[in-house]
């Protein structure tokens, strides 16, 4: 192309003209902050002095901006920063700036000490570093997520312990009076617990431990044990039932706030940025290699992952073109296949949900009849819902990832769609379990339940629900440990030592991040639902996740190979938190419904005096002073709620409009940037052509120029780069076509 020859005008291939441009000079200095670079372009157009004056002018501008920043934030190499520090110290700036800098310094020391302390207290630092060096940051996000859940569960447990358990524990040791919660008597208030056995045998104790019945039911573990209503200390009255209810609301809100806070950064980024496929190649080449990798095999693995990624991307380009070129009949055929397969998926889901419902009913009936067949059968009937859910959650992902191959989507959409289906499956199965439990609890022999629930079968229904959640948690943990020990280890040995072709093809277990994340989100959803019925469940979950870290780490390091399909760190954290949020919302539904709608048990628990658990709040509010009551009733009135919603909607629309405006500005600026670059190319071309013409028709330097800016260029150009002018004497033949 002719323009290329205009550019490379000296021997080394560098264009001396472009070297003189202020933007290039600035990039050489690298002494400016990014913010300042924008203003400098404006300055350039207004000045027409010589190069030396320009640069000193620029340096003054830069110096002013640099004064205001602390040294470590300057974008400069180390030597420059030390010089800057010495200069600042030596200058003895005016008091206001010095004070600011000094205050900053002291504050920074404090922050540093806090950081050092925080680093010491961080859990699992060494393990995480090992995993990072071996597998990169994609898998690391899973372990960060696990650590976050350990912290979250610990916090929830501390909440419950401090406000609900602690008062009950310390009451016998203090001289406080207790108002026990009692109902008025009647059919609903007889607590039928299993016959206390005179000599419990070992098997039955194990069954009780694993299912939460028998001796476990009358402990702090379950809702039924907390039967104190108010505790009268010498100076104040502690309303335990109110505390129980408010702590439930508090832990749900607390989890919500923490998760939203953590996902805020990821959300911001994905809202502002365009689709990933917009810049996919650049992202992979320049931001793809994990600089943290220190292990040789991992480096090799990472290189093959890179290779695969690039090949997949090139493939995706081809597929996209293919989709765009699809003919009408082909499109109809694809839509028909998709419709059929979606119906099939719905059918599979319905079948799973129905089997969960059957299993729950069967399990509950068997418990009611109390037919003790033998130890193993009892355990299986107890755990039947958990077994069915786990089986369904194991089979469905395999099925979904098989059928999506026929639906002919682009590779990235395939992954996302399969994941969505699996999320839906996992979280709805818990919902179906609870629904079937609810149906059994509120169904009585005659049409109308006089207690609001079935007192013969479920004298203390909250404890029963708590037991189901407890069983689900325990079973989940047992399955994870068992799969690691009994499936992955033998598989690894088989692959290593057995030379069978089929086994070699099967290969090592793949550590699939999405499935593992769904597993822990499922466990956490159960924990959120179950904490109301089983206050010790967060503690159990904390221990469970703590042990799970080590199990998964062993699994990763010894049994599995990391998945060849890459999972990006930035998007994965956001994805995990979104799924967790969905789990939280789904978990709060059953809790809210059972607190507000279903009558609380009259035979056990802190809410025996009240119809529903929620009722304790209005009663407590009615005992507050009049003014507060009126204020609270105003807050819960329709007028306030309506105006609050209106204000929130307005704020939301404003923010959305703002975001849209910013997006537009960004794309306009980008276009402007592109245009400026093209303008610059165009002007330089013109300039060089003009110079060449003036070389052939010699005229005094000042008058040969066409553009007002050229004198400075012309003289400095000719002065600094005579070899360039020499080359211009013998122009390449194609340039005569100007």
């Amino acid at each position, binding site marked *: 192309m002719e323009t290329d020859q205009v*550019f490379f005008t000296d021997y080394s291939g560098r264009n001396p003209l472009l070297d003189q441009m202020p*933007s*290039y000079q600035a*990039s050489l200095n690298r002494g400016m902050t*990014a913010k300042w*670079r924008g203003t400098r372009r404006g300055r350039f157009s207004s000045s027409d002095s010589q190069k030396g004056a320009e640069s000193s002018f620029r340096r003054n501008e830069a110096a002013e901006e640099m004064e205001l920043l*602390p*040294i*470590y934030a300057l*974008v400069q*190499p*180390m*030597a420059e*920063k*030390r010089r800057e*520090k010495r200069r600042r110290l030596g200058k003895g700036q005016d008091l206001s700036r010095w004070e600011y800098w000094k205050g900053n*310094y002291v504050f920074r020391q404090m922050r*540093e000490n806090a*950081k*050092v302390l925080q680093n010491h207290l961080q859990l699992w630092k060494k393990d995480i570093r090992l995993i*990072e060096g071996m597998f990169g*940051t994609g898998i690391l996000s899973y372990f960060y997520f696990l650590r976050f859940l350990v912290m979250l569960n610990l916090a929830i447990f501390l909440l419950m312990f401090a406000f609900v358990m602690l008062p009950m524990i310390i009451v016998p040791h203090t001289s406080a009076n207790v108002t026990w919660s009692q109902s008025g008597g009647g059919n609903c208030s007889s607590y039928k617990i299993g016959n206390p056995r005179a000599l419990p045998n070992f098997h039955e104790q194990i069954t009780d431990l694993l299912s939460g019945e028998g001796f476990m039911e009358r402990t702090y573990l379950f809702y039924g044990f907390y039967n104190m209503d108010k505790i009268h200390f010498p100076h104040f009255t502690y309303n335990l039932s109110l505390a129980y209810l408010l702590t439930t609301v508090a832990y749900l809100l607390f989890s919500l706030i923490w998760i939203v806070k953590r996902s805020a950064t990821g959300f911001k*980024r994905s809202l502002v*940025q*365009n689709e990933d496929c*917009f*810049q*996919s*190649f*650049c*992202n992979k*080449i*320049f*931001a*793809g*290699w*994990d*600089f*943290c*990798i*220190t292990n*040789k095999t*991992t480096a*090799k693995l990472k*290189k093959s992952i*890179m*290779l695969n990624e*690039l*090949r997949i991307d*090139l493939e995706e380009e081809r597929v996209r073109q293919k989709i765009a070129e699809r003919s009408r009949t082909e499109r109809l055929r694809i839509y028909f296949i998709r419709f059929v397969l979606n119906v099939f998926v719905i059918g599979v889901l319905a079948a799973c949900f129905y089997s969960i419902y059957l299993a729950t009913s069967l399990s509950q009936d068997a418990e009611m009849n109390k037919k003790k067949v033998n130890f193993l059968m009892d355990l299986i009937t107890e755990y039947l819902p958990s077994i069915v859910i786990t089986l369904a959650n194991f089979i469905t992902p395999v099925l979904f990832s098989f059928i999506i191959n026929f639906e002919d989507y682009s590779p990235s959409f395939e992954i996302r769609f399969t994941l969505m289906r699996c999320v839906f499956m996992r979280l709805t199965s818990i919902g179906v379990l609870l629904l079937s439990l609810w149906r059994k609890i509120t169904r009585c022999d005659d049409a109308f339940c006089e207690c609001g629930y079935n007192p013969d079968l479920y004298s203390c229904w909250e404890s029963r629900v708590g037991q189901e959640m407890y069983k689900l948690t325990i079973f989940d943990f047992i399955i994870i440990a068992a799969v690691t020990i009994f499936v992955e280890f033998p598989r690894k040995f088989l692959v290593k030592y057995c030379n069978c072709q089929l086994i070699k093809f099967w290969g090592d277990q793949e550590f699939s991040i999405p499935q593992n994340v769904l597993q822990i989100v499922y466990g956490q959803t159960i924990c959120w639902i179950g904490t109301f019925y089983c206050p010790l469940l967060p503690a159990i979950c904390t221990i469970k996740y703590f042990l799970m870290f080590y199990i998964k780490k062993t699994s990763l390091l010894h049994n599995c190979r990391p998945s060849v399909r890459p999972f*990006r*760190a*930035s998007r994965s954290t956001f994805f995990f938190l979104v799924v967790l949020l969905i789990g939280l919302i789904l978990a709060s539904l059953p809790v809210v419904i059972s607190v507000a709608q279903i009558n609380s048990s009259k035979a056990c628990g802190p809410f025996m005096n009240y119809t529903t658990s929620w009722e304790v709040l209005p009663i407590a509010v009615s005992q507050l002073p009049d003014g507060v009551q009126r204020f609270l009733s105003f807050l819960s009135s329709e007028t306030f709620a309506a105006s609050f919603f209106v204000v929130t909607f307005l704020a939301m629309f404003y923010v959305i409009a703002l975001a849209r405006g910013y997006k537009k500005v960004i794309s306009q600026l980008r276009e402007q*940037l*592109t245009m*400026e*670059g*093209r303008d*610059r*190319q165009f002007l330089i071309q013109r300039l060089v052509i003009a110079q060449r013409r003036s070389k052939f028709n010699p005229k005094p330097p000042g008058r040969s120029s066409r553009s007002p800016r050229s004198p400075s260029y012309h003289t400095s150009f000719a002065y600094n780069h005579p070899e360039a002018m020499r080359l211009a004497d013998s122009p390449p033949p194609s340039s005569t076509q100007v």
Partner: protein
Amino acid sequence: MGNKQTIFTDEQLDAYQDCTFFTRKEILRLHGRYHELAPHLVPMDYTNEPDCKLPLALIVDMPELKENPFRNRIVESFSEDGMGNLSFNEFVDMFSVLSETAPRELKAIYAFKIYDFNVDNYLCKEDLEKTLNRLTKEELTPEEVDLVCEKTIDEADLDGDNKLSYSDFENMISRAPDFLSTFHIRI
């Protein structure tokens, strides 16, 4: 803090704290690492600012850098002479820029320097080809390499000169979500 260390004076440690993203303890630890690379060359006493530079070959052997395909370029970009001989200041500077808390602009500048193999302040097609080959252990076919380089320049080039200047690169990096988390070395 009352630690009786004799490697640096207090002013020196303060200066390091201000100019980098490390705490005092980390700087002393870095000095330990620097020293163990060449115990006979590196003095334990830095109070009078000795002029000691370690060659590229020693630094590139560190476990944090050994498996990095760009290790030579990283060390060269932080050395003043461009040949990869690092003094302790430059050593600390390197790990400070690559630490977790360094800002994006600073990292982008050095990333550009690292990927610019022929040091002409542009990322031209040859630079990209070299980068790609190091990332994929040269297993892509030449047509694939060509295609990928073309697409990369297409995506990021704003001024249409078929190579990436620093402003193109910076603009592209500001929209790369993974850059901050991958461009970091833990020491």
